[in-house]
């Protein structure tokens, strides 16, 4: 059976590990690719230096990143014939309404606001776990 492919676009190493640990808890088979910003993510998707591009089942996208931020990346993605239908989940610390609206207009499958206040770090991990249980598990299980 073909493994589900996940692309994580996230610049913070800590969040990368957080996501990895939460995914592991789902106990599913998957192939995880990592990009640290929008530009890297597009290179991974479209292929470079003889490598083929990848077409992921799910993209987990941070909004606040250097070089190319999440919204810009999403716009590029939706313009691409091959990639425009990929499921995208936003994971951000930004509670800004404008970000949310823009993302919604570009078509997303889920929006997670990572709790900013980290006294609730327990909550943060829990909410990430719950989010993955609810949204990602189904996809990976197919």
């Amino acid at each position, binding site marked *: 059976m073909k493994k589900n492919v996940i692309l994580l676009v996230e610049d913070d190493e*800590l969040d990368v590990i*957080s996501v990895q*640990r939460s995914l592991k808890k789902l106990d599913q088979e998957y192939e995880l690719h990592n990009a640290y910003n929008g530009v890297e993510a597009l290179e991974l998707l479209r292929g470079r230096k003889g490598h083929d591009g990848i077409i992921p089942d799910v993209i987990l996208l941070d909004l606040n990143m250097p070089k190319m931020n999440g919204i810009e990346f999403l716009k590029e993605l939706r313009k691409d014939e091959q990639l425009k239908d990929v499921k995208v989940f936003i994971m951000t610390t930004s509670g800004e309404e404008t970000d949310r609206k823009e993302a919604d207009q570009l078509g997303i499958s889920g929006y997670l606001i990572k709790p900013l*206040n*980290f*006294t609730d*770090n327990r909550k943060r991990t829990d909410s990430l776990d719950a989010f993955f249980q609810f949204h990602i598990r189904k996809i990976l299980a197919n």
Partner: protein
Amino acid sequence: MKLSTQILLGFSLIIVLSVVNSYVNYTLSQQVNQNSTFLTNSETIIRNSGRLNKSIIDMQSAFRGYLLTDDDDFLEPYYSSLKEIPTLFKEQSQLVQEYPVHRQRLDSIKVLHQEWIDYANSLISAKKKLGDKGDYETLFNTRFRKQFGQKLNNQISDKFREFDRYEYKVRQVRRETLSESISQTNTYSIIFLGVIICIGAISTIYIVRLISKRIAAMVNVAHNISNGNFVNVEDNQNDELTSLSTSLNIMSATLNKNIRELEKRNNELNQFAYVVSHDLKAPLRGIYNVTQWIEEDLQTELSPSLKRYLNIIPERIARMEGLIDGLLDYARIAREKPLKEYVDVNILVRDIVDDIVPKDTEISIGRLPGFATDKLRLEQVFSNLISNAVKYGSAEHPRIGIDCHELPKFYEFTVSDNGIGIDPGYHDKIFVIFQTLREKNAKESTGIGLAIVKKILDDQHCSIRVESEPGHGSSFIFTWNKN
């Protein structure tokens, strides 16, 4: 022109006018004096002239009496006058020394009189030597009968009349001059007095207006400055008050510049606190996460002491986070603009109590008002005070009371507890940022809460005080503007 010069000029002018007035008065009074001396002189001359005339007439009567009666007794006044008259002539000629007309008349009287004496003497001596009868008869017939003496007498009388008439005329002139100079003196005095009063009044009014109007302008500016309104005073004169207002303007500008600078610095500081607080949180979160992961991954392999060490990390991180959040709140008070809305303080307090007060605490809430105010800040004040009441509350039967007392311009709120209380020596210290009376590892005590409360109240010119004794609970009483 300098103000002091103007004042000096005004006074000098008045003084000069006074001096001139005095001088003119002095000169005029000299004139009056002189005229009155003239008058006195003239009276003496007339009197003397009368005496002289009378003496001469006495002599003439005595002479005629003697000739008619041949009685020697008649000759007594004749001889006494004969002795007296030269003295009178001498006196009179001294008095009229300066009047040539008088002198001339007096001289001719003297000559006529002398002529008459010669005539009279010749007749008397002729009569006395009666032996030579023919001589007296001759004389009597040729001279007395021919009215020789009478003619002389008439001439003398005429001269005296002329003399007196002239002197009366002179005296009239003198009298007129005297009264004229007196009235002139009066007129000049009144005019000068009027001019001095006018100049004095005008210069006083001018100076008072000049000074008071400009001082009022400066007082107004000073008042504005004290209200934080850094305006300038306009003054385009060129005197001491102008330099005062220039200094005032410089002061205003400097104050304005410094205040702006201070505001800028303050904003920068707030910005700085906000950014630092935000950025400080990220690495803390990393440390926290990694510690958790280590704990999760090595759960079975960790020794009890290592577990204990690992537990200290999140505790201290939580404290650090408390401090950072406190700083963020502190900075937020300055950053966020006050927003007025209707606040029912009963609901506001009830929500806070439900949120942070444990269920076993006895709560008593008095009648609280509802009014339009800055909800965020009032909420921060209450939540900090109530959370302190919880933190430092009684361990056994915790009780928290919230009450309000209405004053004309303020509401006075009280948040009290029956907890550990505060030593009066620390009542001021507790409002200073990062001052906590608890040991440093106590998680919930950051020393920012009351500093935030104080800052909010200070910004609105409200006050807070604490009434407390160790072991007898604390009451925090603060005022809050009604509008």
